Every structure is written in structure tokens, then in C-alpha cells.
């Protein structure tokens, strides 16, 4: 099952400079584990532990077929073959 994942500039150090990679998994969390197996360290940039639970980092946006995964079940968002996943860090800050 191949899913295309668009990697933002800041995380391309993990993918050897690749802008897009392919992975597999029936859910976003499975996909992230698959990516971690190939690109060690990337998982920690996407998820964090909060209250004993693994959650998507607050300032990382992930989209499945252009939809923000926060509306699709977050890490439990289901994936299928041919889905397009985009990872984009939030553009945010504050004084």
C-alpha cells in the first residue's frame, strides 16, 4: 500500500533531502511508524507524548487528500492506497 508523503524543508534532513517519500499504513500513526523505520528520528518531530498518550504535535499540520487530519481522527485518521499526505509545520509565533 503506497502513500505519498510530502516532506517540509525543515524535515528533509531526515529524508536525505527528498521532498516526497512513500510509506504505508492503514492509519496515520501506522504511516508515521513506517516512516520512522526508514527515516529514524522523524517520528519525534511529528508526535509527542502528552499525559501518557502519543499525540500529533500542536504545531505540526498533517493533511490527507487536502483535509487537515485533526478533522479526520488525528493519528487515527484512516489511510488507503493512493492517498496523498502533506506535512507542514505551522507558521506561528507570538510576542
Amino acid at each position, binding site marked *: 500500500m503506497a502513500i505519498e508523503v510530502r516532506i517540509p524543508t*525543515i524535515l528533509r534532513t531526515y529524508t536525505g533531502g527528498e521532498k516526497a517519500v512513500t510509506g504505508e499504513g492503514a492509519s496515520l500513526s501506522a504511516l508515521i511508524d513506517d516512516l520512522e523505520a526508514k527515516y529514524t528520528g522523524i517520528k519525534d518531530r511529528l508526535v509527542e507524548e502528552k499525559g501518557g498518550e502519543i499525540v500529533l504535535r500542536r504545531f505540526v499540520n498533517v493533511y490527507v487528500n487536502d483535509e487537515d487530519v485533526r478533522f479526520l481522527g488525528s493519528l487515527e485518521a484512516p489511510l488507503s492506497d493512493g492517498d496523498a499526505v*502533506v506535512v507542514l509545520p505551522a507558521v506561528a509565533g*507570538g510576542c
Partner: protein
Amino acid sequence: MRGGALFAPTLAGVLTIDQATYDAIVAHAKRDHPDECCGIVAGPEGSDRPERHVEMVNAAGSPTFYEFDSTELLDLYKQMWANDEEPVVIYHSHTATEAYPSRTDIGLANEPGAHYVLVSTREHGNNEGPVDFRSYRIVDGEVTEEEVTVVAALPPA
């Protein structure tokens, strides 16, 4: 909030920006005051030319925080990818503090290739009057201020 180290007398980098884009960013900051404004100036990948100004909505709608709306963020990046562009400038305003990246700004800076522009509207708010307009590189948590050169028009590519 500036860090302890003194700046070198000559700043290492430079942001070259045209007057119309500079004015549009300042106008945006004044208009949105007392909330923080935010946006980008896109340019061809690798060119370091800020050519296409895009005002973004501050989804946080706050005087102390800014965040691009997640759907608009995706639309913006898809547009840039389609045009072979990248964010050359990422800007936002500080409305009660100086034009220097805050700890939050630094922690959330994820575009090592971009010029991070800070505009402070604390002196004149929505009114006419000069603003602080400063530019920085933020890489791995390290902030380097750079010169801002405003030109009538960018030199031909």
C-alpha cells in the same frame, strides 16, 4: 527581550525588498493593530527575491499570538509548489513589544531559508508614523539580524 550578545557592527546578511512590498507589509501591520498581522512574500525557489506578497489571516486573532489558518496554509504552499516558489519572507507584527523575535517565534521558526521580518506597531498603532521593520534569519534556534535594504524595484532577475 533582545538576547545578551551585542550585534556585530555590520550585519552579516541582507534582505532586499522593494518599496511597494515594504509599504504593503507596514500597511497590513497598522491595519490589524492591536492584533498581530502575518503573511509571506513568496519568490522563485533559490532566488532570494521577495516578489509576491500574500497577506494571511491571523487565525489566532490575537494581540500576542499569530498562526496561519491550517487550510489557508495548505492552499498557500500548494500554490507555491505549483509556481516553484518558496517563502522568501515570513512576516508578522508585534503590537506592544519591539521588532525582535520572541522565544515563541524562535521555537516555532521552521523555515531556515526564510527572512523572518518583524514589524513593531507599538509606537503609532493604527496611525501614520514610522514603524520598526527588522529582518532576521532563525536557524536551529539561533537568531541573526540582517540589514534591510529597500529599493524602488528589485533588480531584473
